[in-house]
């Protein structure tokens, strides 16, 4: 695992609570808003299960700590998206909170329903980008959620030990976290694969 320069993290009163909201004007045509919300709730839950941080959805995009949206091309943050595949998403280090996904991608929550050969699993990308939001950089561990590449039509939705140790060294350990729960989720993913 790697941190950003200066090791930035969210600094709030403990227990840390972060709000997140979706830009209602910038969603993806491929997915229903309820599906997007469900996927992100699950992705935030992965990180919340290992660190003492809670993520609370809010309707108020303006004041939310984490602002999520799907954008096309040049969208004003100096990091234009490039169309189908290539760059899938980007975020900024703490405590910026912007989490942007490339609207041009064929975002999917279920590959049985979305047959496109260039479909990208939203939850895998969400888990990765939330890691950046929390302060993790890219990992060189291929099985880590924070590894920078993702094949189309593939999933990587569970945290690897590398991700867990990295984020826990920034925020501490969720008192309910057990190593067994992590191993169980990895085993279940392997069986599914």
């Amino acid at each position, binding site marked *: *695992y790697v*941190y950003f320069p200066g090791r930035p993290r969210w600094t709030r009163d403990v227990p840390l609570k972060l709000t997140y909201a979706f830009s209602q004007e910038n969603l993806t045509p491929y997915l229903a808003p309820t599906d997007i919300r469900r996927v992100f709730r699950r992705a935030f839950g992965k990180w919340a299960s290992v660190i003492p941080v809670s993520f609370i959805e809010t309707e108020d995009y303006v004041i939310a700590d984490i602002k999520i949206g799907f954008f096309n091309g040049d969208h004003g943050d100096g*990091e234009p998206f490039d169309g189908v595949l290539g760059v899938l998403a*980007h975020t900024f280090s703490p405590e910026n909170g912007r989490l942007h996904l490339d609207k041009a991608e064929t975002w999917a929550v279920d590959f049985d329903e979305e047959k496109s050969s260039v479909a990208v699993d939203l939850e895998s990308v969400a888990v990765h980008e939330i890691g950046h939001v929390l302060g993790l*950089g*890219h990992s*060189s561990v291929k099985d880590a959620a924070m590894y*920078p*590449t993702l094949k189309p039509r593939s999933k990587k939705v569970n945290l690897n030990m590398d991700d867990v140790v990295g984020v826990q060294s920034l925020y501490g350990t969720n008192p309910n976290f057990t190593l067994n729960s992590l191993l169980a989720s990895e085993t279940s993913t392997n069986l599914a694969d």
Partner: protein
Amino acid sequence: RNPSQFTTNPSPDVSIPEIKRHLQQYGYLPQNKESDDVSFEQALVRYQKNLGLPITGKPDSDTLSQILLPRCGFPDDVEPKTAPFHTGKK
């Protein structure tokens, strides 16, 4: 294209200029600046190290496969340029 060991196009899909653009985009080579063979090879080594690939310093098939994959737009950790990045690296 540099007159070096990289003169052969390593793949029909990825040219040397494209590889260099990729390395520039993710922080391994300086933007808008011609890179010589040495800095190109060093950038490839850092890329391969950061992506957990076999370290050859050459645009081999493993490296090209990674370059072609979709990815996060955030730059990778690049050692010589961003020393503070490594304060927390295991």
